[in-house]
């Protein structure tokens, strides 16, 4: 058993970055995730593992530091919250285009604009549909606990390097600020420079002696070549969709109704389900762990098995519901419930919505 600690989600993410053998963290403070860089600075990871931590001048610089550092084959990471993540979209598009692995964490807050600093899930579209310009996807992991804030860091890096693409960890102010028991995984050693060079022949870390120089770019002025590159990206995304879907199902065996919820909404919904079952309502939970690739198959199977309705519970005006509807294709009822702008729905409100919109509606 690993070391047990009581930690905030943000702190667990930061500690996990050190333990995952990350080479560089580049970030800019923003509430509600500033604990990430504060923790990293206090922990002196340079002394623990040789990890570089740098406070950049902006989120724009941070994401471009990931481009530079990630392009050399090193494990690089940043984190921010919604407005800062918006600033990173240009960089993420370049990273996806140039196929540079990296991990970005978004501790979402209420929007649009400067919004507030309370938890929200209104960055779903931005996360799963690409976010910046061009045809691309990010691998999106949604932790629902402090434990997962820790565990998903090495997982995100594994996926990012496996597919040479940026991976996004999307949580919110609730998961970020909450403390829970977390079992920390053992230190994964950082790769040596020699190992990085050997493992990532695509990376620009100095032209091999007697070999060809490497170029990392997202530019190709020839539309036919750029189309080919896009085909390559789309094929890669298809492979990810086939192999990397992650989800959790709770109480779905006998369920007549299913709540679809991720992250903190999934936690809240678990309480709603408990309250519902005390009243004799058979409701289950489908929790997407990867928001992209989206767990289409289990939703399709539940639909086929005769589920009477899905309630998409999200702290947004209804974003994930579109992906649920795309799978259900009108075969059964799909409704949305959620408070937003930083307001967190209560377990009772979720139950009430289920009763009114799905069962009674």
């Amino acid at each position, binding site marked *: 058993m690993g070391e*047990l600690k*009581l930690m905030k989600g943000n702190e667990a993410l930061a500690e996990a970055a050190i333990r995952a053998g990350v080479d560089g963290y580049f970030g800019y403070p923003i509430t509600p995730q500033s604990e990430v860089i504060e923790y990293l600075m206090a922990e002196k990871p340079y002394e623990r593992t040789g990890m570089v931590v740098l406070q950049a001048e902006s989120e724009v610089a941070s994401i471009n530091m990931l481009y530079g550092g990630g392009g050399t084959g090193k494990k690089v990471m940043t984190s921010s919250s919604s407005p800062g993540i918006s600033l990173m979209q240009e960089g993420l598009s370049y990273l996806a285009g140039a196929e540079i692995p990296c991990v970005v964490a978004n501790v979402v807050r209420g929007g649009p604009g400067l919004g507030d600093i309370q938890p929200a899930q209104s960055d779903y579209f931005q996360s799963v549909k690409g976010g910046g310009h061009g045809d691309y996807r990010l691998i999106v992991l949604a932790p629902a606990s402090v434990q997962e804030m820790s565990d998903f860091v090495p997982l995100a890096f594994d996926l990012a390097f496996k597919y040479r693409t940026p991976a996004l960890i999307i949580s919110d102010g609730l998961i970020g600020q*909450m*403390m829970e*028991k977390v079992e920390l995984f053992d230190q994964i050693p950082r790769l040596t420079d020699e190992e990085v060079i050997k493992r990532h022949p695509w990376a620009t870390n100095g032209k091999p002696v007697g070999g060809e120089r490497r170029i990392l770019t997202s530019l190709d002025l020839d539309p036919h070549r750029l189309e080919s590159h896009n085909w390559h990206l789309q094929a890669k995304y298809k492979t990810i969709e086939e192999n990397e879907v992650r989800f959790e199902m709770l109480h779905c065996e006998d369920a007549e109704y299913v709540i679809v919820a991720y992250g903190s909404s999934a*936690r809240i919904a678990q*309480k709603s389900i408990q309250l519902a079952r005390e009243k004799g309502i058979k409701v289950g939970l489908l929790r997407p762990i990867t928001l992209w690739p989206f767990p289409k198959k289990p939703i399709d199977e539940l639909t086929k098995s005769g589920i009477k309705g899905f309630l998409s519970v999200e702290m947004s005006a209804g974003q994930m519901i579109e992906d649920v509807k795309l799978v259900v294709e009108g075969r059964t009822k799909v409704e949305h419930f959620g408070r937003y702008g930083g307001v967190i729905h*209560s377990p009772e409100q979720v139950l009430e919505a289920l009763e009114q919109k799905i069962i009674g509606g």
Partner: protein
Amino acid sequence: MTEEIIIAGFGGQGVLSMGKILAYSGIMQDQEVSWLPSYGPEMRGGTANVTVIVSDERISSPTLTAFDTAIILNQQSMDKFEHSVKPGGVLLYDPNGIIHHPKRKDITIYEVKAAKLAAEMGNTKIFNMVVLGAYMKIKPIVKLENVIKGLKKSLPERYHKLIPLNEDAITMGMNNVTKI
């Protein structure tokens, strides 16, 4: 066993750290815990509250509207959370600064004069530990030895010399809680 608690008062009263010690104590006795603060731009003097859940099972929602226990340390929090205690639940408060005392009949109400006791002990900073002691007397969910272990684990080494003082404060709270 699942105990859902709200601790609410002023920022600076040690509300968040009391919740943290409670949560750490839960970990020391192999339980699941969650600690969720209200957070915001108010650093000192504003209202602060924290939801703590200690359970033998996996914790579902870390955010709640109804609590088994409310620990209330100022008037604003009394106004906000008296009605959030589940029927049959517990409300523990320090009457210091309270104008409108709790009126509910369907819950059990306790008081501890923690601010006064801490002042008498010569250290107002241990106020929150007196309150914690009172809570531990009412609901012996966490054992004193696990609280001490939790303190050792959560406090930096340079503060470990203060642990006996904290223990005294907990005992003081345990011995001075009264049912209303």
